C-alpha cells in the first residue's frame, strides 16, 4: 500500500467522480439507470485498459530517473493547473464549479438526443472526468509500483461517491470541490517539485521525504496568500 499517495489520489478521484456522477445522473433521467450506469462502466473499463496499457509500456526498460522526471513534470503541470484554478475561483476571477448547474446543462444538452447520443454523453463524461484520475494513478504507481493499491484507492473513491449519489438521487452539490482542488493542487505540485528536482539533481532535499510536507505547507500557505493578490491585480487591470 502506497500511503503517501493515498490522500492526494483519493481526493483527486473523489472530485472527478462527483463531476462524473452528475453527468451519469442527468443521463439516467433520459435513458434509465441501467443504460446510464452501463455507459459509466464502459468509460471506467476504458480507463482501466488505458492504465494497464500505459503502465506496461512505461515500465519497460526505462531508467528510473527518466520515469521520475517525466512523472514529476506531469505532476507539475497538473498540480499548478488545479491550484491556479482554485486560486482564481477563490479570488472571484472564475465561477465556482456548481454541480446543480452542471446537472441542468447536461439535461438541456440531451433533452432532444436519441438513446445512443445520451449514452455517449455518459460514457464520455466518465472517460473525460476520469482522465485526471488515470494520470495520477499512473504517476504514483510508476514511482511506487503500487498499481493495485493505487487503482483500488481510485475505485474506493468511485464507490463512495456513487453510493452517496445514488442514495441521495441528486447531484452532490455539498462536496467542497474548490477546497479539495486547492488542497490536492498543492499536494500534487509538491510531489511534482520534489520528484522533478530529485530526478535532475539526486538527493538534494534537506529533510528527505519530510521535505514533501514542507513543500505542501509552502504551497498551501502561498496559494492562500495569492488569492487577495490575484484579486487586486485583476481589479487594477480591469
Amino acid at each position, binding site marked *: 500500500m502506497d500511503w503517501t499517495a493515498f490522500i492526494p489520489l483519493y481526493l483527486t478521484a473523489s472530485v472527478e467522480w462527483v463531476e462524473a456522477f452528475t453527468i451519469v445522473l442527468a443521463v439516467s433521467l433520459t435513458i434509465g439507470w441501467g443504460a446510464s450506469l452501463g455507459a459509466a462502466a464502459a468509460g471506467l473499463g476504458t480507463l482501466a485498459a488505458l492504465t494497464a496499457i500505459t503502465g506496461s509500456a512505461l515500465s519497460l526498460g526505462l531508467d528510473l530517473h527518466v520515469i521520475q522526471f517525466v512523472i514529476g513534470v506531469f505532476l507539475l503541470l497538473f498540480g499548478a493547473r488545479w491550484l491556479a484554478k482554485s486560486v*482564481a475561483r477563490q479570488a472571484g*476571477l472564475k465561477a465556482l464549479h456548481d454541480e446543480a448547474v452542471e446537472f441542468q446543462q447536461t439535461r438541456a444538452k440531451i433533452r432532444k438526443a436519441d438513446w445512443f447520443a445520451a449514452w455517449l454523453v455518459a460514457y464520455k463524461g466518465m472517460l473525460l472526468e476520469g482522465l485526471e484520475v488515470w494520470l495520477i494513478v499512473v504517476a504514483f504507481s510508476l514511482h511506487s509500483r503500487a498499481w493495485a493499491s493505487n487503482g483500488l484507492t481510485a475505485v474506493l473513491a468511485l464507490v463512495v461517491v456513487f453510493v452517496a449519489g445514488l442514495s441521495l438521487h441528486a447531484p452532490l452539490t455539498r462536496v467542497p470541490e474548490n477546497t479539495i482542488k486547492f488542497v490536492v493542487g498543492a499536494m500534487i505540485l509538491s510531489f511534482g517539485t520534489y520528484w522533478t528536482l530529485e530526478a535532475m539533481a539526486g538527493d*538534494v532535499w534537506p529533510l528527505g521525504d519530510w521535505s514533501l510536507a514542507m513543500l505542501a505547507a509552502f504551497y498551501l500557505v502561498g496559494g492562500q496568500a495569492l488569492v487577495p493578490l*490575484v484579486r487586486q491585480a*485583476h481589479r487594477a487591470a480591469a
Partner: protein
Amino acid sequence: MKAFIKTLFGDIWNIAGVALMIAIGAGLMAVHRADLAVFAMPVAGLGVVAVLARH
C-alpha cells in the same frame, strides 16, 4: 483527443510555466548550486500558479 491532450499538458501558459520552473532548477544545477534550487523551484512554482490564476 483534444480533451486528452489538454488533460495531459494543459494550455501554453501551463507548459511555459513548468518549463520555466525546470529551467531554473537545471540552471542552478549547472552552476553547482542545486542547494538553492530546493528554494528557487517552489518559489517559481508559486509564481507560475499566480500567472496561471490570472489567465
